């Protein structure tokens, strides 16, 4: 049909499994700068193995991973906030800091808490060890006056023996952390930590004339921040339909129901002006792979950011899967595994994971063309290469259903 395309080389499932396994078993010194956010890299690898259906690999590591993850939990009863640290260095620092009256006490953060909860859900932990009350407090302390969220908290010792206070102004706030706050609320099934109307105000103020969303109001709209905004709105819409947030929370803003029409088939529902402009901006990002902004080069991580946004909007059929797959295959490292940002660069865990989770939404990897994909791997005549991802949480649909039930 289209001339000039060669068939993509094969998806190296086994190599990708080995790639993530190797990462979990240890990384070279070049990863030292990732140390403060180690938990996020762990999540990429664990979720990558889950989407690649490496059941045994996860089973073998489950116990170690779960106890590692829980060792990062912040002590709510001590500090008045819960949630998770990004790495063990914060934990070891706190242990020593507590001994001195003026010690610096790093607090938990939203991205780490999101990555941690995802990891636990993927490992089929029932989250019974998660301090939900502490997470609610974390969210409350993290939300800024503008409705946005700060990335993390510090803990201040008000009185040398007992009283601690969390404060957030040492960390930037933007759409990334708005998303984390929503995903955390979805996974803990508790939206009371968020001032929803303030948050909606921030999200809609960050919408640009192009129809997508920026990290903060006034800035350029971007594939990553657009994903964060769309997923936040989508999760909020789901929560609204479940009655977890007030049904009129969006009365002063563009309607969530018109943005995500519930009736099927969503593919042909047109909906609000905001929805139409958003879809246009998203579909215009495809060259072969997706770009994050107009007139920028394609980048494999947008396979997820843009693809998942379209999926939530019920518009994933607008993606030219053949071209997208061809681009992604050029970024694949067929020898050591993983995917790179660009065809000429080196693979890294973030691009490897986001490219794989993006690909999992394509029909050729086994995702159903319908918006409600198959739940089970079993009983399918042609077994799927990948588990399809839940586009709003970025974990497999299978695992999210185990946590939340079918409705999300």
């Amino acid at each position: 049909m289209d001339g000039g395309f060669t068939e993509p080389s094969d998806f190296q499932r086994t190599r990708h499994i080995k790639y993530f396994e190797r990462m979990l078993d240890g990384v070279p010194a070049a990863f030292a700068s990732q140390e403060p956010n180690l938990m996020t890299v762990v999540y990429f690898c664990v979720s990558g193995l889950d989407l690649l259906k490496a059941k045994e690999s996860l089973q073998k590591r489950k116990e170690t991973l779960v106890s590692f993850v829980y060792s990062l939990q912040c002590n709510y009863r001590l500090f008045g906030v819960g949630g998770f640290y990004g790495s063990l260095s914060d934990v070891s620092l706190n242990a020593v800091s507590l001994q001195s009256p003026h010690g610096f006490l790093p607090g938990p953060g939203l991205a780490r808490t999101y990555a941690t909860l995802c990891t636990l859900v993927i490992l089929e932990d029932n989250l019974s060890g998660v301090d939900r009350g502490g997470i609610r407090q974390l969210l409350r302390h993290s939300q800024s006056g503008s409705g946005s969220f700060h990335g993390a908290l510090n803990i201040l010792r008000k009185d040398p023996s007992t009283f601690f206070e969390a404060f957030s102004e040492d960390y930037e706030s933007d759409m990334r952390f708005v998303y984390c706050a929503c995903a955390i609320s979805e996974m803990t099934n508790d939206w009371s930590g968020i001032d929803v109307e303030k948050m909606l105000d921030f999200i809609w103020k960050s919408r640009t004339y192009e129809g997508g969303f920026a990290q903060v109001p006034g800035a350029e709209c971007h594939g990553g921040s657009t994903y964060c905004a769309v997923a936040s709105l989508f999760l909020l819409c789901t929560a609204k339909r479940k009655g977890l947030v007030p049904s009129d929370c969006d009365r002063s803003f563009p309607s969530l129901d018109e943005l995500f029409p519930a009736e099927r088939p969503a593919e042909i529902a047109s909906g609000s002006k905001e929805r139409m402009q958003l879809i246009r901006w998203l579909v215009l990002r495809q060259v072969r792979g997706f770009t994050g902004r107009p007139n920028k080069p394609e980048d494999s991580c947008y396979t997820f950011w843009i693809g998942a946004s379209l999926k939530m909007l019920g518009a994933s059929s607008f993606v030219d899967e053949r071209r997208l797959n061809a681009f992604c295959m050029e970024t694949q490292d067929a020898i050591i595994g993983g995917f790179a940002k660009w065809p000429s660069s080196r693979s890294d865990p973030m691009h490897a994971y986001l490219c794989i989770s993006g690909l999992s939404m394509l029909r050729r990897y086994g995702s159903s063309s319908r918006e409600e994909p198959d739940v089970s791997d079993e009983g399918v005549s042609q077994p799927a290469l990948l588990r399809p991802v839940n586009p709003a949480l970025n974990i497999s649909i299978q695992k999210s259903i185990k946590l939340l039930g079918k409705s999300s």
Partner: protein
Amino acid sequence: MESEAVISKGRGQGDAETTLDKEDSAVDLMIEVDGAPTKSADTTKIQQQQQEDVAMQSGASESDSEESDDECTSILFEELPEWKDVTPVALVVGSVMPIAFEARFQSVFGYFRAISASGELSERGLQVATQAAKLNAANYAVWVYRRKALAFLKRDLNVELSYISRVIEKHPKNYQVWYHRQRIVELLKDWSKELDFAAKILKNDAKNYHVWQYRQHILRHFQILDHSELQFTDRLLQEDVFNNSAWMHRFFVLDNLPKACGKETLLEGDSLAEEIRYTIAHINAQVHNESPWSYLRGLLRDNWKTHFSTVNELCKGLYNQEHRSPHLLGFMVDLLDEDIANGYTASTADEKGRLLQKLVEICNDLAQLHDRVRQIYWTWIRDTFQFKYHKQFLSETVPEV
């Protein structure tokens, strides 16, 4: 106070203190070369002398700048006498994803954690934070510590500004360093260098998201937005008309400038007409550039009626010159929709029917010829409009198109 004692102990380390000054003076020298002297020549001379003295003492090379960083990487804090009163806080290496840290990294962060944990706010603490930032500028705790120590020691924040400038030049896409700069500038309440600094970083990558976000923050926070900012975006667009960030920023300026000069809006009347002319000139120069087309849509948001004939002429002209850019055609779909809905050129159902036919034809051409990657999308757009207007025309009892 216990911490006071710790701090004075820290201050006693003269070497540490001057080493830090030495480094900062090197930054000032560099800035001066760029034409923005920050200190008198005399001060610089004294610091230069200090620098040389310290270099002699510590055996380090003449300039302990980041460029010659390798020279000192072999020295571990464990070996330095001025640190012998501190026990480093070792990193617990986990059972998951253990990192094979280099000895230098472990040493620096071990001492950095020790200083953070004891709450010592000192010159030597700043020194270890500087080393830690060199190894990992993305570690937020390093910057939190710096701000605390700088405030406690009442350090000259202009010196810190010079230091962070140099770090940002090395790591222009790092969230933490830009945030640190923002906080320092807010404390200084001196924004005089900021717009030039942002412009300088944009020279290397005119689409760097962090810089734009920072620039907007400065403009808003200090309320210093004025018309020169429009000229700035114009200059960047002259350099690269495909720079979507510059287009976005231009919109930000137009959106916020009125508030700055006490006007209602710049997005109406003569100023809007002028901005539309500006955009059209850029479209004519590069018809296939998505950015000005989107920008034009942004300008027209609630103003289609007033400027319909202008943009209609633009599209007709380009279309008749055989331009078939998907961005032109996509815009024409919007234009035809506006026309059918509001009857700018067509009043009768017959005329509207012809416009709808044209819209359908353009969608088909996009799907089949000019924008095949979005084949299904354009087919959907076509069907959506057919459905919308078919229903409308039927209710007006007009024959089906």
